[in-house]
């Protein structure tokens, strides 16, 4: 199964693999959400949505529906 930011749990880190440019706002790219960059889930809002992330040093929150569009590689695999 394709892993996305939405499948990460609080405190987990991963590397952004790719995404469909159409599906996510340009603003997110500008804040550093680009393939190859590190992402960490800092907090999950009380009702499970949105997610509070650290992407490439930028602290920001996005909704689950956007997080589902961003494919990731779990950190352990990329380190090999």
């Amino acid at each position, binding site marked *: 199964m394709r892993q996305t930011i939405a499948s990460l749990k609080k405190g987990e880190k991963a590397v952004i693999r790719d995404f469909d440019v159409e599906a996510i706002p340009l603003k997110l790219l500008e*804040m550093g959400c*680009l393939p190859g960059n590190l992402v960490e889930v800092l907090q999950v809002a009380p009702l499970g949505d949105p997610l509070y992330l650290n992407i490439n040093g930028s602290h920001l*929150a996005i909704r689950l529906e*956007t997080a589902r569009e961003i494919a990731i590689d779990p950190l352990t695999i990329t380190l090999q």
Partner: protein
Amino acid sequence: MTSTKNINVALIGNPNTGKTSVFNQLTGLNQQVGNYPGITVEKKIGFCKLPYNIKANILDLPGTYSLNASSIDENVVIEMLLNKNDKLYPDVVLVVADVENLKRNLLLFTQIKDLEIPTILVINMADRMGAKGISLDVPYLEAQLKTKIAVISSRKGTGIDELKKLIVAYQSLPTEPCLNASIIDPEYFNRLRKTFPNQLLYKLWLVITQDVNFAQLDRNEIRNSYTRSQTELKKIQQKETIKRYQFINEVLKDGQKINLATAKDFRIQLDRILTHKVWGYAIFFAILFVIFQSIFSWSAVPMDFIDSTFASLSTLAAQHLPAGVLTDLIAQGIIPGIGGIVIFIPQIAFLFLFISMLEESGYMSRVVFLMDKIMRRFGLSGKSVVPLISGTACAIPAIMATRNIENWKERLITILVTPFTTCSARLPVYAIIIALVIPEKRVLGILNLQGLTLMLLYLIGFGTAIVAAYLLNKILKINGKTYFVVEMPGYKLPMFKNVSLNVLEKTKAFVWGAGKIILAISIVLWFLASSGPGNAFHHADQIVAAQHLSEPLSATDFENAVASQKLENSYIGIMGKAIEPAIAPLGYDWKIGIALISSFAAREVFVGTLATIYSVGDTDNENTIKNKMQTEIHPDTGQKVFNFATGISLLLFYAFAMQCASTLAITKKETNSWKWPATQLVLMSGLAYLVALVTYQILK
């Protein structure tokens, strides 16, 4: 004008970089706030004295993450940078960056460098470098980024003098770009370059991708031959962003060192508490409770003082100015009218103070994060919380604050329901009516009944906004992708200077804006109330004398009887009488009718109108409005006009009715259509009439 000699400086930067505090540091109190022509984006200009007796105009442009604009605020930035003919076109741009978010902030910097405008990189918040373990190789960064760098702390005021020196020497700044972004699609950009050899490539690119006005070029011409599909353009923009980040990462690899071992951050601990599933909400509601409590208890003293001061000012004017029409106008029209506005100042200032502190501290973003999922069930966004809270001060800035909601449907619904929240203009109406009809008693030993009523009215306002949003979400058929990106800035202690300047500016804008309308209306009202057509008005004294031939009145009673005969037959009396049949079922008499008509432009006029109506022909000005209303007797029923049923009916009418011309105007501007303000007007006022009608009929 000396402006030809002044250097034009533009401040540009991401939100949350302390750009406004840099602006405040440079300009102090020398600031002017206006609007860009045709739109409601705030235009802040300040003046700054530089070394060698040189002066500068400092323009504080809206915060933006990049030159790819997604809102009218961000458009302003691009339009300013593309229009060399603008008289504020910058000689030099200061890009303000936060030292903790240098990587992201440099994206905007590299874009601006591509426009070949002299640019200084201002790295702010230098006071946090130690705590974060950050060190910078400034000469290296200057060489790589082809710029001059000022490392400053707007909080501590360090580095400002060096920055000023750099501004003075702006002509020696390099203007070449620091990276070549056109290599992402050489074929496309080469064609573009050949067709428009005299134009800057990056400018052309911005014109193609952005919806901005560009004076020197025919946009349609470029667009027709060079436009690609939105998807293709976005792909190129993505490539451009990646390219820029690659460059920035390279530069920072050698130019910035972060020692994580010494980095301390209480962000994580604070976030854990403030976004906790129980504590997070508990703290949020506790803060709201404290805000509303303190606004009412702290404002009461200055408000009473203002009220009585204006009452005695009226008396003074009436006693010491020569008797005549002009004195009447001043004592009975202008002074009570102005008093009606000034009395708002304490509450508005307190509200803006709290909102400004919550925004400055970074807490507001946590509320957005916490509330998003809940608000979405009602068709709103987490970002709607800020407008709904600001709406308790005034709907106008609140509706403008919806601009950062990315999804159009969520934004539209927020705009439409925000006027339901209890704005400060409703407060004086509520305050006076509650004082008249709700006894000052305590229930359960501690709760003040009047305060409880007021709180209930606030809850009704919020509740209606939420329910209306839910219904609109079901009714409106608008589809769109729901984008939601919110930056979570680091926590900061609010700076006194920023907060106080913000409060001062917002309060001033409100008082001037509302003040002009209220003053004009109170003069017109006074005129309409002190003149009338026909004999019934002009020969009021003879008519009254004739009515009481058998039992002559005392001198005072006679005067009062003449005054009320006059008011009833004045122009405004005739107007009030005309609408009386429509409002009588709501429990209102013709005098209240007058106040309803005049407060259509702005709610707060209600109190001013009653003040004016009851002051006209009244010899005893020392009486406050409240006392005058308290003693008003309905001539037909012999009961108090402001009885319990009428009072509650009025309170609910004002809770729902769209009595604010400025809100309608701002809704028109922000939605670009008359359809939405018309919807607000019909739905809100229709609801108000119905609720007031039912309430009065049940309670009477």
